[in-house]
């Protein structure tokens, strides 16, 4: 189920993003902001996951305890 397609309409009251075309309908605006966030998220995750080997990444980034 996609996050912004859930039936609870209250969840769609997004804070406006920093850019994008403004809409007079808050719900429509929220939905548009949400879609823009998810589209940018797809691209961000694609770039972040460049190595293609998450198991190796997690092994290599293992930390010791701090405070």
């Amino acid at each position, binding site marked *: 189920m996609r996050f912004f397609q859930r039936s609870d309409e209250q969840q769609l009251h*997004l*804070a406006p993003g920093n850019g994008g075309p403004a809409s007079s309908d808050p719900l429509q605006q929220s939905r548009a902001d949400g879609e823009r966030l998810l589209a940018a998220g797809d691209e961000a995750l694609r770039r972040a996951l460049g190595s293609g080997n998450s198991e190796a990444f997690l092994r290599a980034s293992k*930390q010791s305890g701090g405070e």
Partner: protein
Amino acid sequence: MAECVLGVETEYAVAGIREQEAVDREIIVRRLLQLARSTLPHLRDSSSSGVFLENAARLYIDCGLHVEFATPECLNPWDAVRYVEAGHRTLLELIQKFAKWRRREEETACFRINVDYSGTGTTWGCHESYLHRMPPEELPLHLIPHLVSRVVYTGAGGFHPLSGGLRFTLSPRASLMERTLSADSTGSRGIFHTKEEPLCTGYHRLHVLCGESLCSQWAMFVKFGATSLVVAMAEAGLSPGKDVQLVAPLEALRVVGGDPQCKRTLRVKGSTGMTAIDIQRHYLAMAEAHLDESFMPPWARAVCERWRRVLDLLESGPGAVSGVLDWGMKLALYAHHASARGLNWDRLPFWAEIMDRHRHAVDLPPGDGQIPLDLALGPEIPAPGAVAELDTLLERKGLQWDEFRRVQQFRAEFLEIDTRFGQLGPRGVFTLLDNAGVLNHRVPGIDNIEHAVRNPPSTGRAKLRGAVVRRVAEDKEGDWYCDWQRIYSNKHARLLDLSDPFAQTETWHDAPPRGCQYHPDLFEDAPF
């Protein structure tokens, strides 16, 4: 109006990866510190192998080989966030210099995160300090309900670090708090840290260690601002926590962490129950009722406006904070990504439960990786009775083990995404989203970060420290050292007293020659 003093320590996770293998982290952190010493104006830190910088911040290596940046003393939440971000920028510059120096096909990265996903419960900190003058033993009463309930906006978001599945939580680090009160900072950590180390005269220092590194300016701003106001109200004798005492604070912390809807009620003494938002509104209402009192800082109204706004958004559901708060951004992205991977996001907690029960049944300790499904269900299963029970459970829900296999398949990918969310630099997920203009996390007035990288705050002892660091950093013969309360030169036998956090003028004293007992450690002589 009253002045507040606050500061923030951020421990970073640093990692190097070459041909899918880890680069020795000790090599990385040693070299980063050496690069700081060779490229940044600084004075040596007398209590560790770190440095104090010209913006009056401290950069050093803390236990567990974490690079740590402690902001200078700040007098308002705008500066606190600004100097946290200055720390990010300083670290990123050092990482980039390190990469240039290595000239190898490897990735070196620095992450804003406070847990790793090895399953061992490893955690490191993002600590806050608030000066006050009330009896320290009275603070837990007023702070604990706040520290538990503020997770609704201070949570970094991510996955439960001890689950074998994918169990989303508002606060991964909160999952690892073991006590309500504790003096320990490296094990058996508590919601309230009882350490008493003022690092100044005339004040106590509240040291909060249950928080997390954040990316959202809004979340940081309200975190520092609201907590400052709660401390100020407690100090003024208003007893802000008296009417919202939690029956079981640790249990409440778990409940808040596992509830993105922020609707679950917590057991509160003398009440039928309150949500985390109700508790936050209790503190907020008290702050708003005393905005103009002399014990409140001049910026209290600005904090309360954003504090109220974020609580209002949270009442509307998690979608309302998906561009504002760290955990809200992550929840939206991860749920969407789950869908793209063919996973049912709403069923992930169920599968996490199945995986955790299964691990328990076959006696596999955390951190030992996943159990291949074929082994788990094959003829050699170590706990056939327990697995048969799970079989029955799945059958009742109309689910198949194939879905378990898919969750296993993509689990590491989600954990990598969560680690990379706060990665410093252009590959970090948050940075990419921010650059794309799809977030709404910024707070007006938190700007000019580059200036904060090179300059101290405009008042208080931090201003003096920064000015002196800049002035004497080149005097290599002076044998200069620094700590939070003093700057001194063994060569010149002079000492600057900075024990007053509000000091405005430099007051130098004669000091005994060689008065500084410097304690070098393994980072002192990097083999480069």
